């Protein structure tokens, strides 16, 4: 039976609303599609395309399309396509892990500073200032060189130099929200500080924090690429940045070994930037005009 009465509009949750806005942003949806494709290829690709990425399979420096290895080979005769497919794993793994560390430190420091204010704020902001002064790449280089270039060390190194802007943003949001009436109401009924920070204020500060968290994955990927370009990556794994670094001396003979991995990094980070912009618009419809 069909419903003849006019249905009242269903109440829509803010996240559904944001998703609807996001869907309307074609660039952001494209970004999401690209990123998902890259993730799927990186995860499933090595099982489907089984050429070993670190073994010599053909004449070195073969251009694309001249052998069964469609993208050609690098200076050691390794298959570039296999390198790209396998290298994506390392790049994405470090990108996500490092972003997680960045966000965890940034939100914790920012939340404590913004919530408690006063001396706590003063001390934490000094620490933040200190990490802002450290030239981030050089410091990460020192950490990786001293402690070894494994995935976790690299992620930690990136995390500890990248959290400051997240912390500042979180702090500003907390300072703004903690003075709002609903927070005061919670406080007046005796809510503990822990509850106020994590359950009351943080969810309300979430939208901008989600955007910077997403963008920090892109930053971390660029950072990892830079480190591995400089040779600071696990020598036993393939990564896009390392492929660029390894093939750089041979660009005159074959530019492909450098061009393809760079394109992969560019596409991945671009996709993440588009998603970040889309989320920003979805959460702040007012800013759209800009």
């Amino acid at each position, binding site marked *: 039976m069909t419903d003849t009465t006019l249905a009242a509009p269903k109440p829509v949750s803010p996240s559904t609303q944001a998703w609807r806005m996001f869907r309307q942003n074609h660039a952001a949806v494209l970004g999401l599609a690209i990123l998902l494709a890259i993730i799927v290829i990186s995860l499933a690709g090595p099982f489907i395309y089984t050429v070993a990425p670190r073994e010599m399979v053909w004449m070195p420096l073969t251009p694309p399309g001249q052998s069964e290895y469609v993208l050609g080979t690098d200076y050691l005769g390794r298959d570039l396509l296999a390198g790209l497919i396998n290298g994506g794993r390392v790049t994405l793994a470090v990108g996500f892990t490092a972003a997680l560390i960045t966000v965890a430190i940034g939100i914790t420091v920012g939340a404590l500073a913004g919530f408690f204010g006063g001396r706590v704020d003063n001390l934490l902001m000094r620490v933040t200032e200190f990490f802002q*002064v*450290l*030239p981030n790449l050089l410091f990460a280089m020192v950490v990786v060189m001293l402690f070894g270039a494994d995935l976790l060390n690299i992620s930690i190194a990136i995390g500890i130099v990248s959290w400051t802007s997240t912390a500042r943003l979180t702090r500003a949001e907390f300072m703004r929200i903690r003075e709002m009436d609903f927070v005061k109401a919670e406080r007046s009924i005796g809510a503990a500080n822990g509850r106020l920070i994590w359950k009351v204020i943080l969810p309300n500060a979430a939208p901008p924090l989600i955007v910077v968290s997403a963008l920090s994955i892109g930053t971390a990927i660029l950072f990892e*690429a830079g480190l591995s370009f400089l040779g600071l990556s696990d020598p036993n794994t393939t990564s896009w940045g390392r492929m660029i670094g390894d093939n750089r001396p041979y660009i005159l003979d074959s*530019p492909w070994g450098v061009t393809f991995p760079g394109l992969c990094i*560019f596409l991945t*980070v*671009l996709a993440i930037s588009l998603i970040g912009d889309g989320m920003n618009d979805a959460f702040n419809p007012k800013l759209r005009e800009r």
Partner: protein
Amino acid sequence: MLQGTLNRLVNAAILLVAVLVLNFTLIHIAPGDPVEAIVGEMGGATPEMIAQMRAQYGLDQPFIVQIGTYLGNVLTGDLGMSTYYSRPVTGLIAERIGATLLLVVTALLVALILGTVLGVFSARKRRSVLSHLVTVIALAGFSAPVFWVGIMLILLLSVSIPLLPISGMTSSSADLTGIAHVLDVLHHLVLPALTLATIYLAFYSRLSRASMLEVLGSDYIRTARAKGLPQRMVIYKHALRNAILPVVTFAGLQFGQLISGAVLVETVFAWPGLGTLAFESILRRDTPTLLGILFFSSMMVVVMNLLTDVVYRLVDPRIQAR
């Protein structure tokens, strides 16, 4: 005013000491030590020689003594000895700093000026092709790894169209002097500076665009328009002066990132600055040199932040009153 300046200087000094303490603690807790690295490089040594080297580098002293000595040494300008060159790190840095400053300052100026111009223009004509182009450039600039951009520019402007030199700071074949030398250096500077500028160009154009849009929407701009000031006057005298404040602040705060970018760009172009030295120090496991560069760069960032503060006061006289 004087009090404020003094506070800032003290603050800066504390930050730098903290960098040194962190530096030192890191080496101390890291696995392996420099002597092992040197021994490895030499291809082995007797236990007596190792003990002697430890004493020579002060590694047999307790932690607190070592760190005290280290801080004292740095205060007198001694950043230790390079394990590769067997020369004072301070001297190595002094030789290279000129090249890095030339590159970084050029890139910063190009990015600031061009970025502001693009940002202001696209804020004025929001729906124009150029405005969209600025958005696209900004997005691409944020997403491309700077060292890869450098290599692509080499392939385009040095290999395909041989306009600019691939690497280095001077032509090795010619022994040029005077103006010819300056022109030669500038010729070599174009590509690295352009590469380094791309990321910051993206950043500044976006920032100045957003800032300009915000200012153009404010009441005092409406007032300026309402009283019939010409467009040019409104934009450049009223709006730009206010819109440029966040751009200047970020230019200062981003200086550390600029140095990081310089490490990568210098490596790509074999530009003989601190970045290339840092890269080589990794290959040679020359920890004292890398730490020296880290400290020196931190010092540059601190100085840059102080300078930003001064510029900020010049651009916005209101701040002085506070």
